[in-house]
């Protein structure tokens, strides 16, 4: 990055323009262009004849569509409401109260994200299924209670497990952003706590709140993992895609439904974008971080609330650990460690596990660099406004693309040896095809699949950092990359580490895109969990899941340790947790 000393302003702007265009090209090639062949399929039949809108019309005329669409909406709205509510209270407890054992609650806040989705389903079935611990009242010792897991209820619980940590991440960074001076002013005006909450806290975090609504809504609208396992007969759009693509190999119809899935996402994006227009940076370089005071009642309520959430999550995890040790649930409850050997599993043993760990490390490193740099260019500069808007728009799309669709699109694009130029008898070599069949394609698919949440989290943080820094640098004729390296990165380090660990834990558990892409010689553990469970070996699947959860927890502890040291050195106000 260090060019010879050149504080020439026009050089700076030229360099910026080149970088923005470069990032635009990358984002297009990794997000938009791979989706094109699949979307073109939605206008053709399975023999690739163009049939216009026929697929779309056929699908609308299918009576189950309206039902699936309404179901998907119901799921998304309910999940979003609860996830944001839980995420908000938990985040509030972590940032604005003197919650006892705060470090513990912070470390375990994302715990439900570490559990592979299939294992969440296994855990939920062991607790709430027809033979579940709670349904049967702990083997009949207390009265049982049946929540009717299969269907809407199961989907909602599973989705909240998956979505609330995502809302939490965003809300923690939003709530961290506060100005003590405002609260002090309010106090001297004798404002009630409610009034302070409504007039200072809420307006302060409205951007983060909006984003967590947006993310939870789309995640639960498009996810098929949970409905597939505990959905029973409750059809949603995402399982409709699964039926078309995996059940009937009807890619054209699968692509058609994916486009329907994108509609609410695009609407949400437009609303979100519109909302942001009125957004001004609330925190200036002069802000003082909020320091929560002791409040016995609030602190105890928060403690009970956070404990309840963690008990449920850890309860599900414990039942997975139990499942890995028990011989035949629920009929022969003898224990053994046998299942941790994975010797029966196609002879791969621990190989998939280590492949997955390396894949996740690569994803974390490359993904974080890419995502942060993209967010920085989009957020901090003025040139090429339209292109930056497009990059922003593209970056919000991956969240709406079901993993299964992404996986198939990546096969279609990256497995293509060459492109033919329309109307000319000419082929261009596809350089990206070199990635196919390597670890690179897995890493890339993960980076893109989880791009949106990381991108939004990075922009949220960058918005907090006053543009004054860039403006001052400019007037002092310091090139922007120096400001970036010396100010932006150090100030954002906690978020950068957060993004890295988010990428890591998600790559550890992801199945839907990877299952289509992993090369024969690079088996990965999330796929072997599915295969073990397919072969009826629930215990081994649970054992591998346990291993994955423990690995993610270990990485989280490293993250906690590092970020503690980092935040001591960098900004105090960006992470008051540690003060």
């Amino acid at each position, binding site marked *: 990055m260090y060019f010879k000393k050149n504080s020439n302003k026009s050089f700076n702007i030229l360099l910026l323009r080149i970088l923005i265009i470069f990032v635009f090209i*990358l984002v297009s*090639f*990794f997000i938009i262009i791979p989706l094109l062949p699949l979307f073109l399929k939605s206008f053709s039949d*399975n023999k690739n004849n163009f049939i216009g809108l026929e697929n779309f019309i056929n699908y609308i005329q*299918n*009576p*189950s569509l309206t*039902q699936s669409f309404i*179901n998907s909406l119901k799921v998304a709205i309910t999940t979003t409401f609860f996830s944001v509510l839980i995420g908000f209270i938990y985040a509030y407890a972590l940032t604005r109260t003197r919650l006892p054992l705060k470090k513990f609650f912070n470390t375990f806040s994302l715990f439900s994200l570490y559990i592979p989705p299939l294992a969440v389903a296994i855990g939920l079935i062991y607790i709430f299924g*027809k*033979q579940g611990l709670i349904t049967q009242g702990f083997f009949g010792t207390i009265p049982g209670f049946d929540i*009717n897991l*299969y*269907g*809407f209820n199961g989907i909602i619980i599973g989705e909240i497990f998956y979505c609330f940590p995502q809302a939490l991440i965003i809300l923690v960074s939003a709530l961290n952003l506060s100005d003590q001076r405002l609260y002090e002013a309010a106090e001297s005006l004798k404002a009630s706590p409610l009034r302070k909450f409504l007039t200072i806290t809420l307006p302060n975090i409205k951007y983060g709140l909006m984003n967590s609504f947006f993310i939870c809504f789309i995640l639960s609208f498009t996810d098929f993992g949970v409905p597939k*396992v505990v959905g*029973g*007969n*409750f*059809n949603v759009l995402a399982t409709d895609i699964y*039926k078309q*693509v*995996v*059940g*009937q*190999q009807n*890619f054209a119809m699968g692509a058609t439904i994916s486009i329907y899935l994108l509609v609410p996402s695009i609407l949400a994006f437009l609303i979100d974008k519109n909302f942001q227009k009125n957004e001004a940076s609330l925190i200036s370089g002069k802000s003082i971080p909020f320091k929560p005071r002791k409040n016995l009642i609030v602190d105890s309520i928060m403690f009970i609330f956070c404990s309840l959430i963690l008990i449920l999550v850890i309860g599900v995890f414990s039942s997975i650990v139990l499942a890995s040790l028990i011989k*035949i*649930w629920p*009929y022969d409850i003898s224990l053994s460690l046998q299942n941790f050997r994975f010797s*029966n599993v*196609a002879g791969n043993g621990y190989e998939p596990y280590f492949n997955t760990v390396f894949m996740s490390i690569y994803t974390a490193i490359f993904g974080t*660099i890419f995502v942060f*740099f993209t967010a920085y260019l989009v957020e901090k500069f003025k040139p090429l406004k339209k292109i930056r808007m497009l990059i922003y728009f593209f970056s919000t799309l991956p969240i709406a693309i079901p993993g299964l669709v992404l996986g*198939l699109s990546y*096969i*279609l694009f990256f*497995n*293509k*040896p060459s492109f033919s130029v329309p109307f000319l008898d000419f082929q261009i070599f596809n*350089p*990206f095809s*070199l*990635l*196919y*069949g390597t*670890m*690179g394609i897995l890493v*890339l698919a993960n980076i893109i699949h989880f791009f949106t949440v990381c991108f939004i989290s990075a922009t949220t943080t960058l918005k907090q950092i006053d543009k004054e820094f860039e403006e001052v640098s400019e007037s002092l004729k310091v090139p922007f990359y120096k400001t970036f390296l010396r100010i932006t990165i150090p100030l954002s380090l906690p978020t950068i580490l957060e993004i890295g660990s988010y990428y890591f834990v998600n790559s550890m558990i992801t199945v839907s895109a990877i*299952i*289509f892409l*992993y*090369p*024969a*010689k690079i088996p990965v553990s999330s796929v*072997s969990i*599915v295969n073990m469970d*397919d072969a*009826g*070996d629930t215990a081994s699947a649970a054992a591998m899941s346990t291993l994955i959860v423990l690995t993610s927890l270990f990485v989280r502890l490293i993250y906690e340790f590092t970020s503690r040291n980092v935040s001591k050195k960098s900004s105090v106000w960006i992470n008051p947790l540690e003060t």
Partner: protein
Amino acid sequence: MGAAVIGTALAPSANAWWWGKKGSEKASITVYTALEDDQIPNYLKSFERDYPNIEVNIVRDSTGIVTAKLLAEAENPQADVVWGLAASSLLVANDRGLIQGYAPKGLSNVKPSFRDPAKKPSWVGIDSWISAFCVNKIEAQKNGLSIPKSWADLTKPEYKGHIVMSNPASSGTGYLSVASRLQNLPSEEDGWNYLDALHENIAQYMHSGSKPCKAAGKGEYPIGVSFGYRAVKQVNMGQPIEAVFPKEGSGWDVEANALIKKDKIKPAAKTFLDWAISPEVSREYAKSFAITAVETDVPLPKGFPSNPEKQLAKNDLQWAAVNRERILAEWAKRYDGKSAPK
């Protein structure tokens, strides 16, 4: 980062591990399979012994995923061979021109109904999988249910809400049961009437072939309509399951092999296909499957009916493939729209 990934990928010096250990001395083939994960190492033993110079890279996934992957990779096929994939899936792949006909050595040993009749068959079967019910004896007793013995029994009112079945729209096993009912009653209309009655009792249509049986094994639901190998396996694992092969006969499909059409077909791929119907490996198949394409002297695995061939209901694989789209559309119209959870 993008630049970094591409840079690494372009650098020929990138380590072998990143590249998936490419460039080893051995001939190597990539095999796509839907056979069960835990069986594969046993099957492969004799191949590894006889052909130590051929490295076999297995990609194992469920039938639907393997088929989707094959079709998506059509432009630049990665697999050399498909081993043990539903014949109905191979018919789809063949229809898209992805398969190269090949007559493996020992083809004459394969029973005629287990292969594509063409001289160079596009698919050659190894075994047959048949529909069966998994009945959890403990749960059946708790709920006061008798053990159903036939398809007709399943429609009795006592089983209402106690039966789970694979969804034919997402699972081949579900489809073979549905297709079999439609072919084995006096008319297709009778078939649909039967399915209407069955639907009244179904608690859930599940998105996988084996899951109904697994659910029965864990006591989630007393009765799972699934397939024979799975039922027998769970019995042998010690679960309180009775494997029921319905009186009227079972729906069935063939697990088959095929050679993938590509510019350079490796000789090792053909070697593999020859081996895959050899008497030795067929004996291994016969240890788990009651019906194999190549006759063996292995005694019937525990839990199957004594004359398994008789258990097969009338089934025209070609008919089932050609009519699949129509049948599934009708099925979805009748049973999939009203999806309120029970």
